[in-house]
């Protein structure tokens, strides 16, 4: 789920930038440092929308660098266990399939795919029902439920299921409205 939050960060700046464009330099550095990163607590920082405030700088003893506490508004993406969301299938194999929801990768094991869907190998590996009416293959859109979230260094990885009610391939004819 996407959230709009206010986060804080201590930014260090080299004295060469102490001039009329100090705040601009801090903003650019903040955006470069923070956008695209991921933390276990807040998830992925997708975009910084506004720098709310830049506090008074504190000179660090010994190095001359100055630390500024910066408060900024940003859009983050944080998946939660128990959350239901839509994703795009990226890879299908006999163990299950991988799907992507924004920056996050989700794996759905074949144990958590309905029993009436069988894996079909071939040029385009897929999971299909016995009557062929429902098919999951690369680029299919699926609705899944996250049942586990793991944070790994700078990435979040999820495990999902499509075995519950109202989950599975999205067959919405007016989804492209």
């Amino acid at each position: 789920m996407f959230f709009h939050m206010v986060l804080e960060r201590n930014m260090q700046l080299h004295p060469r930038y102490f001039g009329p464009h100090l705040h601009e330099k801090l903003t650019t550095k903040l955006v470069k440092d923070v956008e695209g990163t991921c933390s276990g607590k807040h998830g992925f920082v997708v975009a910084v929308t506004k720098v709310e405030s830049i506090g008074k700088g504190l000179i660090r003893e010994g190095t001359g660098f100055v630390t500024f506490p910066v408060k900024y508004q940003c859009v983050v993406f944080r998946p939660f266990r128990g959350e239901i969301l839509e994703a795009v299938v990226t890879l299908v194999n006999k163990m299950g399939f991988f799907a992507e929801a924004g920056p996050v990768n989700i794996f759905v094991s074949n144990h958590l795919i309905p029993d009436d869907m069988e894996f079909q190998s071939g040029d385009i590996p897929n999971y299909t029902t016995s009557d062929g009416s429902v098919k999951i293959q690369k680029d299919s859109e699926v609705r899944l439920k996250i049942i586990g979230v793991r944070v790994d260094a700078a990435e979040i990885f999820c495990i999902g299921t499509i075995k519950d009610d109202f989950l599975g391939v999205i067959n919405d004819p007016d989804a492209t409205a």
Partner: protein
Amino acid sequence: MSAEEEENAAELKIGEEFLKAKCLMNCEVSLILDKKYEQLQNMSDDPLSQTSQVFEKSLQYVKRFSRYKNSETVKQVREVLSRNRLAEFELCVLGNLCPETVEEAIAMVPTIKSKGRFQDDDAIDKMLRDLSLIKNLNRYSCWVHPTFLWSLLIQ
């Protein structure tokens, strides 16, 4: 960490910070990221080199899974959903998934039943029908005078 073991969006256990934060539907994120991309385009010739992979993937995702395309419609959707006593997270899941029946809505957001957000199932049904009306008007791209739309929705 025990806090992570207890985390469960189906019971709205997502942590104090996220419960209080502003939640965004995919269509709203789409508008924000579009604006940001435009700003980058104005500033440099190659905006893609300025954006992270996370930004690009998120932009593609929200564009693909936005049910509502223009900003007026997005505002109307949030307005309709906000009329009920829902938590931000519940509101956004409903706005993103657009359940068609009361049963589906309860399956997507169990807390609307377990936390008694609505008086009865009819109230849930009314909200879903209002959402469906907005989606259909959006799909046929017909411009509806705001007061006319309002009179349809307050019935």
